[in-house]
């Protein structure tokens, strides 16, 4: 007997309960103000500081099947997008409670699955109206100050606090730039437009005169900070009704409205909007993007090819224990080498050197992947010739000879390096660096013309790269990290590598800092890649909440089959009784968003209690639903809403409040993954334990198990 089976939901659904309790652990990570957690291992008394969901789940041991599925979902989200893990975790929790509520109210499982799944689809379509196009970001680049190659940008870092003043300065800069005459296309007219009724025919007339583009552009800037849509109640009512029956047309209409309302065409603005309170990390990312852009421009002469931010050419170099003033972004690759190499680097400085790139290890015993070493081959000595050197010594000498022959002074190795060889090379003024990232090696291969090889014996003249320069990153011995290593900068003329140096006096925070940097980098990466962002500051979540509330109150139209999901194709009674249960399920799903928003608001510390935060949401929710079109309401009230959610202290300076943005696909995918996980667990009714696992199930827990 090697298999046990446990029925999971006799009265309450165990899996859903587990999900909501797991999700509770990540509650404080939601929002821009994150509280860190200490995780202590009681057995070995080690502790780690975590401040992100991914790190939290990495440190927790979740042995239950549901826990593992949750971990898997978070990892998958993180691997694909590097952002959205906390949203996923929180919503998974909130929605498992919502689903439990539905079960409690007697809603059949198939209906919960179908309605929730389609409702989330509907939300994803609805929030398209809050998308802000990100276009021509790099058109403004020319006017920004050029950063010379060696100049590095330092910023002060206050990672756990927002910096509203810094943000508004960016805003001012933008205002200033708007006034500059050379950007005339964005400034032709500043006349306010009162309502879309007036606007649309207007635009049609102008379109014939070839100036509609400029008009539109002018409108974009005009409505940059404050929305000037003053919809009449009446107009919106009809608009709304129309839209819900014909979702496609509605979408189109509202999409069009948005495009004319908001747009983002400035990198600084985008960066501030996507920083979510972490301006210091974002500043570094922004500089990295600028550097890469300038690099690309220089290499291509003119920027004929549209610039694409290549995140695989961005690296971090962490300096734990050093003051934050060292944090900066530099072109080239910065790596840490042992302080004993200092003299060697000094000698190699100020001259172009030749490089060899090794794909594998650089040791005598290394063989390429897939090579099976035979163990039963013995070598016999023919003569009584005494072997003086070991085989490693022979090998090292041979390698050295090759390096001398090709005049190579730098060897970058992806794998490990024989210490003996490193030392030998150092004596002959050659630097060997091991454990170099594959992307770095690839970048050097492209920039120097070197070809990566698996064995040093493969090296011929064509494989050697030229023109690398080695330098101390700072004055020698100025910067030495805890492990007695110094940062060294590698560069060539055509290299497009950018390294962000991250320093933190508190070593325990190093990991957090690096994670945050990457989160920011990936947000910018996704925004630039997708050429769109969401209006952030929870505007999308708020729209989902109001949208679901409206859907719940609407009677299901006969023949309206769009929201039936797979039930559409079945003739099951579930399809016909859907109308009865639908409002309940939609409200439960909406409750998930409600919980999300109130925790977010509470976490930003602008509200003393979740109740207070909840009142704020309730107030706006009623207004939004009352207005007939929540998306227009959000666009109109955006600054107030965002300030309520982000920082109420500066609400008197609404005009200057910078906009907050969110990435589009990663966010929607996080929602979808969270719901998928919940629905997967919901539909699971038993756990089947295979193999010998059940031997460990002790006898008092045997109750509820069935054996085959």
């Amino acid at each position, binding site marked *: 007997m090697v298999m046990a089976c446990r029925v999971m939901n006799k009265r309450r659904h165990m899996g859903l309960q587990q999900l909501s309790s797991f999700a509770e652990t990540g509650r404080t990570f939601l929002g821009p103000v994150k509280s860190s957690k200490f995780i202590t291992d009681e057995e070995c008394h080690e502790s780690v500081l975590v401040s992100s969901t991914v790190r939290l789940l990495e440190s927790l041991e979740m042995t239950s099947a549901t826990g593992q599925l949750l971990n898997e979902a978070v990892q998958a989200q993180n691997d694909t997008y590097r952002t959205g893990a906390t949203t996923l975790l929180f919503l998974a929790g909130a929605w498992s409670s919502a689903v439990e509520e539905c079960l409690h109210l007697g809603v059949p499982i198939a209906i919960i699955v179908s309605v929730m799944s389609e409702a989330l689809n509907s939300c994803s379509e609805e929030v398209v109206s809050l998308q802000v196009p990100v276009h021509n970001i790099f058109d403004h680049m020319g006017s920004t100050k050029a950063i010379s190659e060696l100049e590095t940008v330092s910023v002060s870092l206050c990672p756990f606090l927002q910096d509203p003043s810094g943000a508004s300065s960016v805003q001012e800069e933008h205002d200033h730039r708007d006034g500059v005459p050379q950007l005339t296309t964005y400034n032709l007219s500043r006349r306010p437009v009162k309502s879309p009724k007036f606007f649309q025919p207007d635009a049609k007339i102008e379109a014939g005169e070839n100036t509609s583009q400029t008009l539109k552009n002018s409108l974009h800037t005009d409505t940059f900070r404050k929305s000037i849509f003053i919809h009449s109640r009446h107009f919106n009512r009809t608009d709304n009704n129309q839209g819900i029956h014909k979702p496609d047309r509605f979408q189109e209409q509202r999409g069009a409205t948005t495009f004319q309302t908001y747009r983002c065409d400035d990198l600084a603005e985008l960066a501030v909007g996507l920083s979510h309170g972490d301006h210091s990390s974002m500043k570094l990312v922004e500089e990295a993007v600028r550097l890469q852009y300038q690099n690309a421009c220089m290499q291509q002469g003119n920027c004929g090819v549209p610039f694409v931010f290549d995140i695989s050419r961005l690296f971090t170099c962490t300096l734990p224990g050093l003051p934050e003033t060292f944090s900066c972004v530099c072109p080239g690759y910065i790596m840490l080498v042992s302080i004993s190499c200092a003299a060697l680097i000094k000698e190699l400085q100020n001259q172009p050197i030749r490089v060899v790139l090794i794909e594998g290890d650089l040791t005598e015993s290394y063989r390429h992947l897939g090579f099976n070493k035979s163990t039963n081959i013995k*070598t016999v000595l023919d003569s009584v010739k005494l072997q003086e050197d070991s085989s490693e010594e022979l090998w090292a000498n041979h390698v050295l000879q090759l390096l001398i022959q090709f005049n190579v002074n730098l060897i970058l190795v992806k794998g490990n390096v024989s210490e003996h060889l490193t030392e030998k090379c150092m004596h002959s003024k050659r630097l060997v660096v091991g454990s170099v990232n594959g992307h770095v090696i690839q970048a050097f291969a492209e920039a120097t013309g070197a070809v990566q090889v698996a064995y040093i014996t493969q090296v011929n003249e064509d494989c050697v790269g030229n023109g690398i320069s080695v330098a101390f990153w700072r004055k020698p011995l100025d910067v030495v990290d805890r492990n007695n290593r110094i940062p060294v900068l590698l560069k060539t003329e055509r290299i497009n590598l950018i390294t962000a140096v991250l320093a933190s006096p508190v070593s325990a925070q190093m990991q957090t800092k690096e994670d945050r940097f990457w989160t920011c980098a990936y947000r910018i990466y996704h925004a630039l890649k997708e050429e769109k962002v969401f209006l952030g500051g929870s505007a999308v979540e708020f729209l989902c909440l109001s949208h679901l509330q409206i859907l719940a109150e609407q009677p299901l139209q006969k023949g309206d089959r769009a929201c039936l999901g797979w039930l559409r194709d079945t003739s099951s009674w579930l399809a016909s009784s859907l109308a009865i249960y639908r409002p309940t399920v939609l409200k439960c799903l909406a409750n998930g968003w409600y919980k999300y928003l109130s925790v977010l608001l509470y976490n930003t510390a602008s509200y003393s209690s979740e109740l207070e935060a909840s009142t704020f949401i309730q107030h706006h929710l009623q207004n939004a639903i009352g207005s007939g079109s929540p998306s227009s309401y959000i666009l109109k009230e955006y600054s107030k809403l965002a300030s309520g959610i982000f920082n109420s202290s500066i609400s008197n300076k609404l005009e200057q409040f910078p906009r907050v943005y969110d990435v589009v696909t990663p966010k929607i995918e996080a929602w979808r993954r969270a719901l998928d996980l919940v629905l997967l667990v919901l539909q699971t009714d038993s756990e089947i334990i*295979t*193999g010998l696992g059940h031997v460990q199930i002790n006898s008092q827990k045997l109750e509820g198990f069935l054996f085959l």
Partner: protein
Amino acid sequence: MLSRLEAKKPSLCYSEPLTTEKVRATLSVLKGILTSCYGPSGRLKQLHNGMGGAVCTTSQSAVLLRNLSVTHPILKILTTSVQNHVSCFSDCGLFTAILCCNLIENVQKTDLTVTTTIKLNTHLLNFCTNYLRSEVCGCRIPVDFSNTPILLCLVRSILTSKPACMLTRKEIDHISVLILRAFLLTIPENTEDPIILGKSIIVPLKGQRVTDSTVLPGVLIEVSEVQLMKILLVRKSSPLKVVLFSTSLSGDFSDPGEGNVVVSDGVFLENAVLDQLINLGRQLVSDRVELVLCQKVIHPSLKQFLTTHQVIAIDRVGVMLMEPLSKVTGAQPIGSLGSISPGSYGSVKDWCSAKFGCKHFFHLIPNEATVSSLLLCNRSDTAWDELKLTCQTALHVLQLIIKEPWVLLGGGCTETHLAAYIRHKTYEEPGSILQDDGCTQAELQLIAEAFCSALESLAGSLEHDGGEILIDMKYGHFWSIQAGPSSVVNWTDLLSRCGCGVYSSQEELGWSFLRSTCHPFVPQTCLPHESWEVSPQSAHSLTLDCLTAKLSGLQVAVETANLILDLAYVIEDKS
């Protein structure tokens, strides 16, 4: 050599295994697990080893039975025959298993002798098979390959019945179209007899959105970025001469077996093998080969040699791609390092590089071949695994449709219709079932009742949320309705469509509860032609099943039930 002798334990023998309480209990647990998985609203099962291994969430018989380690011989017979059926037909595994359990259960309740039961079961099986294959059958639809809506309905029905794939409505539509397209790409253009179908390769791309999935003609080989950069340096020409190696070119020595190989100093075996490899490379270059594909590893030095001679070298292709690659290129896989006969070379029209998600691919574009690649995405691992298996099932079912171009109505309708038809025949024309072998009409009625109620409760297993099942008195189709004290009068308003979607609710149908005793009636045979006219615009679509798979399922279920019922003794070797 020291050997230990242990006295052989006596074998254990017990009679009439089915009558023991323990066996019945285990059988009912197994049936419970399988029944709860059945259909589009079936419940899922989490399979894991309880020690932190991977968690698999599924409702498919193939995965469940593979992982359930049953010990009792009776259960083993059952699971093995279902697994055999699934390995041949991919679909209808749960149908087979549940029907078999139902039959065993129902037949046991009758007091007939095993011989009579088995005889009658076989008659009923033959009767069903003949009916389902006959022209008058009221629950099958012919498949015309020019009619894609029917094929799409079939694929969609398969996808819908696997809820662990976690697909939304839109995603189901997207994947159905892709599966159909992938399948159509495997059909050769010139239809010589016999038609040899190509192959659809499913390429995994986990973590992406389902709607990012796509189908490409030809073969996609995943390569690393570094490898791709090296490939891109090679001049492009077309068509390319291709060689395909199934042997490793990594430069290691073939296993010398036991014992030691003694080599004198100064002889380097590795270098000797490498020299041989380079010689091989020289021959390839002089034969003007432009693309070298290797199932296993190519020695870096050989790769470097080939690349410098403008030959693309791709290694670690994997055994799964070997057959399709051979098909696409016409090259014979080479298994040794000896000289290569010119006949083993193949050719390919063109290649290009592609990037999906974060993976890089080398895309081989064939001249005219029947191999396609289905790049399949899903968000989570467990949902991807389930989706992959489902796609394979769908592709297999489509192949079966070519051989026997018929589909059965799904959604429980075929089962209820068949049961109604058998009941009718047993009462009206028992002679048509009963052959002249000594069974009485009363015996037939008993067994037919057991058989029909096994079919009906199988259809009833589609319901998991406490609804009621009705059957109409005209076609004998399956209708579902919410449980509760609803008055019988307004059923027409409460019902919309039958399980398969062919009929909509009309007054004259007349319904009765499935498990109630109703008078046998004549279910209308010969499906009207207009009912299978599925237009893409129509609001509903049909739920369909593959005829071949279902017939085999029926046969396996009845025969396995007979086999299990026939078991008189179990003899267990305890030592």
